């Protein structure tokens, strides 16, 4: 594209298929209808029609994490419109990451946080699902909020991590550090 003289400042980010900045409609010349894709992940073919789509413009709710473990209502508190999903499939068909977005919305409605989390793990937050939803659902936003809730209130504790933090604050490694910092302060330190 650049070599053809395009500027493309606003529609490029990572160039690696993960930032969601470069959504396009692309139609190979032998097809009737275009498909959505990430431009940086699309092999251009002779005669292909390409048109860039706008970046995600959906509003994010100021959804802070709650103090206590979440319930299903925690999700609806910020994204009440999720309940209005009419299962039309539009979001699933447009997702350039091939996520079954509608199923993710259904998981939200069931309050199944682990399932939502899994469903949206490859979401690049391009916002196309929200842009096409007639019922004003913002699947990626409620999906991310559900993931964060699941992460922050994970059912089990990472005990090794917590133990290590305690050890460090109790000064367990002090002696080793003193020896080591001394030994390694010269470049030839034997570590």
């Amino acid at each position, binding site marked *: 594209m650049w070599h053809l003289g395009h500027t493309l400042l*606003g529609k490029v980010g990572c160039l690696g298929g993960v930032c969601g900045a470069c959504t396009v409609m692309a139609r190979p010349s032998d097809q009737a209808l275009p498909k959505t894709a990430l431009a940086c992940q699309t092999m251009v073919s002779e005669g292909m029609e390409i048109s860039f789509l706008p970046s995600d413009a959906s509003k994010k709710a100021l959804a802070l994490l709650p103090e206590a473990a979440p319930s299903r209502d925690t999700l609806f508190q910020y994204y009440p419109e999720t309940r209005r999903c009419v299962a039309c499939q539009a979001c699933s068909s447009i997702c350039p990451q091939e996520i079954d977005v509608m199923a993710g919305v259904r998981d939200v409605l069931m309050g199944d946080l682990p399932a939502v989390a899994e469903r949206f793990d490859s979401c690049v937050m391009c916002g196309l699902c929200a842009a096409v939803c007639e019922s004003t659902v913002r699947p990626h936003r409620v999906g991310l909020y559900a993931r964060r809730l699941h992460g922050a209130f994970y059912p089990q504790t990472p005990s090794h991590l917590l133990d290590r933090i305690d050890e460090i604050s109790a000064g367990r490694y002090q002696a080793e550090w003193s020896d080591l910092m001394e030994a390694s302060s010269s470049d030839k330190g034997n570590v």
Partner: protein
Amino acid sequence: MGKMETSKKRVDDSRLSRKNEDMPRLSPEEKDALVHRYHPDYKDEAYAEIRIGANKGERTVHEVARLLEGESPFFEKSVPLSPTHQVDVLIVGGGGAGATAALAAKAAGASVLMSTKLRLGDSNTVMAEGGMQVAVAPEDSPVRHFVDSLKGGQMANDRTLLRTLVEEGPSVAKWLIDIGVLFDREGDGNLSLRAGGGSSLPRLLRCKDYTGLELMRVLKDCVLNEEINVLEFSPVLELLTDGEGTCTGAILKNLDTGKLIVVQAKTVILATGGIGRLHIQGFPTSNHYGATGDALSMSYRAGAVLTLQDTFQYHPTGSVFPEAMAGLLVTEAIRSAGAHLLNIHGERFVYELETRDAVASAVIRECQEGRGVETPAGRKGVWLDMPLVDLMNGEGTLKNRFPNMVRQFSRYEINIQKEPVLIYPTLHYQNGGVKINVDCESSIKNLFVAGEASGGIHGRNRLMGNSLLDIVVYGKRSGNAASRRAEEAAHGKLTLDHLKIFHEARKAAGVMSETISPLLFPDYVNKN
């Protein structure tokens, strides 16, 4: 059958018999010799002496020297310096380090403004796949993490910075979990740990192969929740000083309107990331579109000291085929999971989990000595045999643990579960950067630097997973330190006086180039 196909068949045919084969590790002497002979860091023609500034007399690659010695876009231009914004802390860069710094500064009570070149989150951070190193396992320790990193860094790491990195690792991991980052877990709730090159124990926390995406999604969400003011597509083009060596603000440019924005800030944090898009020595890169080393040239002109500007990381496994994927990273975690590297004859030639500098050097050796495979576009590479991962760890491992990688290649009709791919080193990371102390302050007062833009933590070669840790540990530290400083500092005078001093130095040293820096976007972009 073409040469490429014949060679590929050799790889396919030998897969089963290679499965349990041992590959000897390099002795320290062998590794040294290999790296000195083949690593791009040791290619003399690629280097120039820096003629002016704080690091005068040291060497760096031509691409960086050109920018460091470049002239400011505002030199001898009359720019009205009345501030459009006045804040405590200006944060430059919307990647992981910038976002973390903004959150920390805001939490500490400072008023915060963020400037970013692209959108918030479009960065190298979002692309990280492999994971983040934290010494979590009971048999592991921060001390061990320190020793591994020091060895990996060829003993050139700043010891204090490195110690802080590894000691604060566990608590920042906890912080990330608390804000809802969903790391992979074991059945008992413990964090799942993976091995990485150069590490003596499995120490990588990860979210499948979307670790950076997950981190960035959550950090961005937090920044939006905090209603931090972010100016997108508005990069910083120049720093402002009081004329006496203290940083007092910056000039930004709104890329849409072309208008300049003058920010008066008590402290500035540069978190502009790396240099991949300079395509040093002609290498392809794994980096995002905005990785043009802007912090280096801007801070250097204002008088900052840089460190380790002569060393870059070439990730051993960048894709070279198809052409459209050239430079794209194949995560090291694939090799940790058992993938082999093979030359045109289908022979292994290096233990795959040596440090990156050694593996990259070995790949370059194979290609230089005629044992590489040529792609239709004329690039050279060697095979990375990924189907082995499934063979060793069970069917479906690639799909479950590396879904992004499987998808990326499948878009070009390559099934990595069945066939090997061609790789060659890709420009990946700036090992050095702006010299900082443990609070991220540079040699310029009130100018802080965090993340890949800073240097010293990783020595001459960063270990996999230490950068994501770096951006969170030092992102936080910079945000805290900058807001503490802002409490006691007043807004300073806004001048461009340092440009005159720099220009005089250029003249005295006979630097004639017309290069303007920072670069902002890669050379091949039509900027008009």
